[in-house]
């Protein structure tokens, strides 16, 4: 059993390191209370932040004889300066000397809190750790001389991007706002669309170091309690130092890691998220990322663009079909080409066979390597195109199209037909609205090509069956990934391959939503009453 041994040791190595880290972390976090001396409090904070340059400390005197020393601490750039100005103004001007009785120690803090602080959320804090965390997340801390507690005023004012059109999912018809990196903005975008008291937003903090705020959004009564519970459970289980993007959360809570398919839907579009919430799904928003993930998600969702719902039903259905078709092209075109060209030449009409044979005359590679070469070249081109500065893009396409396409054909390295197949595959790949699914297809395509090279069409069929088996084993938060095709649910077919008119989609997806299935009632077609010809 050496395998097990290796597995154990590796596991142990990982475990020990993580234990050490948590241990050191918890040592640091030992409760440290504030003391009454303002000086030493400030010093302590300064020290624990390592004299950080973005920590701003102002000491002001207020009160009747300017005898109360107050320290104001905040992080530069994390707070709203206008609000801070207001706060300082009111501290200095509004508090009349008579209001403050320096001897009454208990009421001093609450006095200031009641009278002077007019903005933001206010807390009273007694230990350093919380205080420091607050300072670092956009609070201004007020430390008062001779008081062993501090007032923390929330006046966050981050530099933020405005609401812009999302880059990853553009559309022609439909709302153009997209999520931003700010959590508050994102929740407000959702709230604006669903003005219901049933839209519940539950907050969590994940990441031992980053302490990222994560919000679980769902509609009470629509979302299945089990799934909400499961989401909480899975998020609570996360024990990691940093959450920097939604992708991190996604990877940590998904059902199955060893799959190229995305089992969690993520989008930049608030309208898409709102729509999914209304189907009874649960959204997870992560601070610092414009992507929101929605669970549970099914495979068909990755073929649905939010524009589908803003367009006529028949056109949307056509587009859906087109996308499914493109899915198959993107997945299979090169492998079918290889299979037909190396195993099933009889499938080509004689004239086509002759012209391909003539093209391939003098090409040194077998069809498989030719295809592999072109596909890899294209993947490289694409990857380079994504990471490149915009300005170079033009040059890139010239290099790609002319140098690699034209020249390679003329040099007799690849055949024209192969270039056509590869470009068709690439274009088809772009038709799939969800990028994460499109990427997984790119991966599987290579496997298919290998199978086609070894067994021809039988190999491709083998690959398809294997793919289906794999898809059927997948689940997203307990919901079978391939539903509503398998298990087949007739009512849910209205929003899969087809997009039925909205009035006919009166039920929510069955497997996701068991409690409140009916969307609308007594609302047949919205035909006007037939007019009598008067």
């Amino acid at each position, binding site marked *: 059993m050496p395998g097990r041994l290796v597995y154990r040791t590796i596991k142990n190595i990982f475990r020990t390191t993580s234990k050490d880290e948590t241990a050191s972390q918890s040592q640091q976090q030992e409760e440290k209370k504030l003391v009454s001396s303002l000086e030493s409090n400030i010093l302590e904070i300064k020290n624990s932040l390592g004299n950080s340059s973005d920590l701003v400390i102002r000491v002001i005197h207020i009160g009747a004889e300017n005898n109360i020393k107050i320290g104001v601490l905040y992080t530069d750039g994390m707070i709203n300066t206008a609000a801070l100005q207001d706060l300082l103004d009111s501290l200095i001007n509004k508090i009349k000397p008579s209001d403050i009785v320096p001897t009454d120690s208990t009421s001093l803090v609450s006095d200031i809190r009641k009278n002077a602080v007019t903005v933001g959320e206010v807390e009273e804090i007694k230990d350093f750790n919380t205080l420091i965390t607050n300072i670092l997340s956009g609070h201004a801390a007020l430390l008062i001389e001779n008081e062993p507690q501090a007032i923390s005023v929330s006046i966050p004012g981050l530099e933020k991007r405005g609401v812009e059109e999302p880059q990853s999912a553009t559309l022609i018809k439909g709302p153009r706002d997209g999520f931003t990196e700010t959590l508050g903005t994102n929740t407000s975008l959702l709230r604006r669309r669903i003005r219901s008291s049933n839209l519940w937003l539950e907050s969590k903090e994940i990441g031992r170091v980053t302490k990222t705020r994560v919000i679980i959004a769902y509609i009470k009564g629509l979302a299945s309690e089990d799934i909400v519970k499961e989401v909480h459970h899975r998020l609570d289980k996360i024990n990691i130092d940093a959450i920097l993007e939604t992708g991190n959360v996604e990877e940590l809570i998904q059902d199955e890691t060893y799959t190229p398919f995305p089992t969690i839907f993520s989008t930049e579009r608030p309208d898409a998220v709102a729509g999914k919430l209304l189907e009874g799904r649960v959204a997870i928003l992560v601070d610092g990322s414009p992507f929101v993930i929605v669970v549970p998600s099914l495979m068909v969702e990755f073929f649905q663009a939010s524009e589908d719902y803003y367009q006529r039903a028949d056109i949307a259905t056509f587009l859906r079909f087109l996308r499914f078709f493109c899915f198959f092209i993107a997945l299979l075109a090169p492998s079918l080409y290889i299979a037909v060209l190396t195993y099933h*030449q*009889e499938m080509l009409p*004689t004239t086509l066979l002759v012209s391909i*044979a*003539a093209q391939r*005359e003098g090409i040194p590679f*077998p069809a498989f390597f030719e295809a592999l070469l072109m596909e890899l070249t294209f993947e490289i081109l694409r990857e380079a195109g994504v990471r490149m500065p915009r300005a170079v893009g033009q040059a890139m396409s010239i290099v790609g199209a002319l140098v690699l396409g034209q020249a390679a054909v003329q040099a007799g390295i690849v055949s024209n037909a192969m270039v056509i197949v590869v470009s068709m595959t690439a274009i088809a790949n772009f038709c799939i609205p969800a990028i994460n699914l499109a990427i997984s297809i790119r991966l599987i395509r290579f496997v298919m090509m290998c199978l086609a090279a*070894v067994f021809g069409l039988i190999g491709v069929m083998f690959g398809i069956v294997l793919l289906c088996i794999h898809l059927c084993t997948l689940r997203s938060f307990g919901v079978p990934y391939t539903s509503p095709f398998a298990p087949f649910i007739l009512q849910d077919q209205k929003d899969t391959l087809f997009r039925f008119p909205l009035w006919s989609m009166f039920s929510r997806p069955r497997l996701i939503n068991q409690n409140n299935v009916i969307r609308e009632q007594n609302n047949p077609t919205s035909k006007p009453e037939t007019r009598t010809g008067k």
Partner: protein
Amino acid sequence: MKKVIFFILFTIVSIPTLSACWDTREVNDLAIAVALGIDKSEDKGYTVSVQILNPSEVASQTAGGGSGYDTPVTTYTSSGKILFEAIRKLTQQTPRKLYLAHLRIIVIGEEVAKEGIYNAIDFLSRDPELRTDFYIIVSKDSKAEDVLRILTNIEKLPANKLYESLEASSDAWAVTGKVNLNDLLNDIVSEGKQPVLTGIKIKGDPKIGTSPDNVQSIYPKAELVYDGMAAFRNNKLVGWLDEEESKGLNYVKGTVKSTLIVTDMNDGQVGIELLKSSAEIIPHFDVGSTPTIEVKITGEANIGEVNTNLDLLKDHVFSELEKKTNEKIKDNITSAIEKAQKEYKADIFGFGDKIHKEDPKKWEEIKTNWTEIFPTIQVEVKVDIKIRRTGTITNPFHNELSEE
């Protein structure tokens, strides 16, 4: 963990398989055969000739281009005791691996046809590479080998030329028959029907036909022409039907899509274009043990050409034309039937089959000596063609000319 096991299993299996791709054949490593000829060789075996196309020449867009002319096809010949041996032996000559899936046409030499085509057919239907969608024809007065050596114009591939012109002549002139492997097999196996195959003839000098000169001149010195049909009995060729008889045969078989019938009328000719026709074979069993057969042809026709002085719009003209057309068709059919009955004793019309279908019990009785009975049976032919339209003009110009 499950996935890991699976992955490892998969790689273990796929590594040896990837390194050996058993059935791969690259397109550019194939010698694509488009036509196959089967002849007798001197030593009782078969000679096989294969027409292989030359992809770069066929696919080249600009003809010539200064680089000179390569023939679009090359024909190789080899012989062996059985067909398969001869084909495998061909690899000694062909530059690449022979690939037979794209065969368009198979030419059976007259000699082979006279000796029997069973052996040839067995290989053709057994080999998985071969398909069944090629046509089978018989070379007339020449070897199949020579037929495959003639270069053709316009259709660069002679095999394609043969294929296309067989289709065209069968559809528009109805003197040839499109027979593919499945049809042939069914006919050979069937007790009440004998196969017929279209014949191909070389018109002109076969020697010149093999050189590019043939296609570079506006008037080809050697041409491939379909000529009549070959009647078989028990898979052996017994004789040929000429053009008219072939047409008659096709009428009875119901395979006439469209054809032209020329009738004499008022010291001129009228061309009747047959548009659709259907045939019905009705066996009767009332008199004695030998059945009689009634053949009924019905159809519709147009007037296609009038080379005589004729007032088409008079009411009796159409019926007269119809009568003459019917007679003409009937002549064709009876001459074909007579030839089949008297000369070849081969039931190429499938009368026996029809009897089998209509009255299986009776057929059981006469099945064994059908070959003897067939020449004696009475065949009654009834033709009923209706002429419907006159084309885009009514009366011919002749009428006005003669008035002057």
